[in-house]
C-alpha cells in the first residue's frame, strides 16, 4: 500500500536542516505499525511529509502509494486517495462546526473517489454513529472545530474525524500523548475498531503505553532521521525497559557519522 524508499527530507526554508536521511518503510493493507523514537528523531516529520505538508522538501527518494509516487500531490489530493493524518496539535477553527468541516471533507473525498455524497441528514446519521466509537456526545458535532477543546478532546476528535472520513492509510502522530488512562483506552479502542483488512494504521508514539491496548504487527525505531531497527511488539517492550541508548550506539557504529 505504502512504500517509502530512501526518503531524504529537509526543511524547505533551510535546506541545511536535514531531518530525514534515508527512510525505508513498507506498509501493507491490514497492518498496524508503530514508529517509536526519541524527540527530534523525525517521526512527526515523516507523518507530515506523507500527508503532504509544504514546509518540507523531499530531496531524494520517493513515496509510493499503491505503486504510484505521490510526491507531486497536494495535501488535499493525498486525502482524496485515502491518506489521513491525526495531528499531534490539532488546529482550532472557531466558527466552523465539526459537522460542517467533516461533511464538506467527507463529500469532497467521496466525490473524488466516485462514491455517493451524503446530504446533511444522511451525514448526520453517519457522524452520530461514529461518535459512539470515541464516546462523545452529539453536541460535539455542533461545536467549533477544536475551539476550546481540552487536550484529550482534541485527540479524540482526531480519531472521530478518522472514523467519519474512513481513510485507507492513517498516520496517528502522538495521538496517545497527553491522555489520561481512560481517554487512552477510548482512543485505543477507536483505533482497534477502525483498523481492518483493507486499511492500515501507523502509530507514531513516544511511549509503549498505547501498545498495551493496540497490538502492532510491526514496530520501528527511528533515530536521527532513519529507521534504526524494526521488529515485532517485543521490540517496543525492550525499548520501554532499556531506552534508546543501545540503538544510538548501533547507529553511530554503522551510520554515516563514522
Amino acid at each position, binding site marked *: 500500500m505504502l512504500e517509502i524508499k530512501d526518503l531524504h527530507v529537509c526543511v524547505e526554508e533551510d535546506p541545511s536542516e536535514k531531518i530525514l536521511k534515508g527512510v525505508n518503510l513498507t506498509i501493507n493493507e491490514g497492518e498496524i505499525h508503530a514508529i517509536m523514537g526519541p524527540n527530534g528523531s523525525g517521526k512527526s516529520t515523516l507523518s*507530515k511529509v506523507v500527508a503532504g505538508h509544504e514546509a518540507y522538501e523531499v530531496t531524494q527518494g520517493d513515496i509510493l502509494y499503491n505503486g504510484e509516487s505521490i510526491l507531486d500531490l497536494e495535501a*488535499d489530493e493525498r486525502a482524496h486517495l485515502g491518506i489521513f493524518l491525526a495531528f499531534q496539535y490539532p488546529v482550532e477553527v*472557531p*466558527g466552523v462546526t465539526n459537522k460542517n468541516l467533516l461533511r464538506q471533507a467527507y463529500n469532497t473525498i467521496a466525490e473524488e473517489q466516485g462514491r455517493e455524497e451524503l446530504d446533511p441528514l444522511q451525514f448526520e446519521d453517519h457522524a452520530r454513529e461514529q461518535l459512539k466509537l470515541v464516546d462523545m456526545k452529539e453536541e460535539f458535532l455542533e461545536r467549533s472545530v477544536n475551539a476550546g477543546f481540552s487536550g484529550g478532546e482534541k485527540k479524540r476528535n482526531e480519531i472521530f474525524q478518522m472514523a467519519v472520513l474512513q481513510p485507507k492509510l492513517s498516520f496517528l502522530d502522538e495521538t496517545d500523548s497527553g491522555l489520561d488512562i481512560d481517554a487512552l483506552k477510548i482512543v485505543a479502542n477507536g483505533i482497534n475498531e477502525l483498523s481492518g483488512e483493507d486499511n492500515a494504521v501507523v502509530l507514531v508514539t513516544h511511549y509503549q503505553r498505547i501498545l498495551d491496548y493496540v497490538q502492532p504487527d510491526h514496530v520501528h525505531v527511528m533515530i536521527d532521521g532513519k529507521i534504526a531497527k524494526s521488529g515485532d511488539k517485543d521490540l517496543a517492550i525492550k525499548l520501554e525497559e532499556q531506552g534508546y541508548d543501545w540503538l544510538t550506539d548501533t547507529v553511530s557504529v554503522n551510520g554515516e557519522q563514522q
Partner: protein
Amino acid sequence: MGKVKQQKERTFLQDLLNFQGSLNGKSKFLDEVRLKGAEEVRNIPFPTKKLEDWKFISLRDLYKDSYELASDLDVDVPDISEHYLPESKGARLTFINGSFSAEHSSTEDIPEEVLIGNIAKLAEEDNDLLKEHLNKYVENNFEEDVFSSFNKAFLKDGVFVYVPEGLTVDVPLHLLFVQTDADTNYFTTSRSVVVADKESEVTVVEDHIGLGDNKYFNLPVVEVNAEEESYVKHTKIQRDSREAIHIARTAAFVHHHANYESYTITRGAKLSRNEPRISQRDEEVEFTVDGLVLIDGDQVSDTHSVMDHRFSHCESHQLHKCVITGKAHSVFNGKIFVRKDAQKIDSFQENRNLLLSRKGLVNTKPQLEIFADDVVCTHGATVGQLEQDELFYLMSRGLNEQQAREMLIYAFALETIENITVDSVQDLLVDEVHRFTENQLDSELTV
C-alpha cells in the same frame, strides 16, 4: 506649497455650504440648526495629516472633486426590494440619496406607542421630542468636529425613533439608506436619532447601500440614547459604492443599568472612516463596540473609536477584526478613557488583522488613558496571515486550498457576525464574507 494645499483643504466643506439655501423655509427649527452648523463649519479647520487623529489616511480623494447636493438631483430609482430585510418588512424607513421615501417604507409592524418618523416631517410638525434630543448626543461626544458640523449644516431629513418606557420592540427597525447611481458626484448626509426610554428594548439595523460604482460623499451621523435599564442593539452595515467616501459619526449615551451593543460591518466605499464614541452616563452599564472590516483593491477603512468610562462599574467590549487584501489599508485607533473615580471598570479591547496580501497595509493603535486605579483593561492588536499549519490541517482533511482559505477567513470573520441577532442580517453577511473570499482568491491568482 504646503500652505496652498492647506488653504484648499480648509475651504472644501465651506464651498459646499453654497448648496444650503435650497433647504430652507420648511421648518424654522431645522433652518436654525443648519445655520448653526454652517457657522461651525466656517470656524473649524478641515483636518490634515498633521493631526494625530488623521495622520494615517489622506482625504485627498474627498476634496479633490466637486460635488452637488444629492437631493437636488433627479433620480430614477430601480427596484430595491431585494435589499429589504424579511424580519423588518413592516418596520423599515428608506432614504434615497438622503431623502425619505414613503413608497419604500413601512411601519405597520411597529407598535403604535413608538414614535418613529422621518425628521423632515417631524420638524415640520414642530415635534417636541425631536427638538429635545436632536444634536444633544453628537454635540456632547464630538467637539470641534467639522464633519458632524457639516452634517448639521445639511440636516434636512433622517430617522427619529423614540421607544417609550417599558416597551420592547420585537421587530428590528431597518434604516435603509440607498445611494443611487449618477453621472454627477454628489454629497449626501443623514441623521438617525434613537432614544430608548427606561426599561425599553429596541434593535436597529443601519444599512448603507450604494447601487452603482459612482463617486459620492456620504456623511451619516447616528445618535443613540439608552436610558436606564434599556437595551439598544445597533448593527451598521456599510456597503457603499466602491468609489464612495463614507465618513460617519456615532454618538451614544448609556445610562444606569443600560446596555448598548453595536456591530459595525465595513465592506464598501473607497475610503471610509467610522467614529463611534460611547459615553457612559452613570454607574453600572455595559456596552459593546465590535467591528468587522473586509477590504480589498484600493479600499481604505479607518476606525477611530472612543470608549469613555466616566463612572464606576462598567463592562465594555471592543473586538475589531479586519481582513485586508490587495492594496487595501486598514487603520484602527481605539481610545479607552477611564476617568478619575471611575472604579471597577472591566474593559476589553482587541484589534485583530488578517493581512492576506503583501501590498496590504495595517496601522493599529490601541490607546489607554486611565485615571482610576481599580480597573481591568485588556487591550491588544495583532496582525497575522493565514497559518500554513491551519491550511495544512484543513487540506489534509480533503478540502482544496480555496475551500480551506475560505473556511479560515470565514471563521475569522464569524466571531463578530454570530453575535448579530437578526437572522437575515447574519445570512447576508455570511454571503458577503463568501463573496469577499472568492474575490480575493481570484484577484490573488491574477497577480
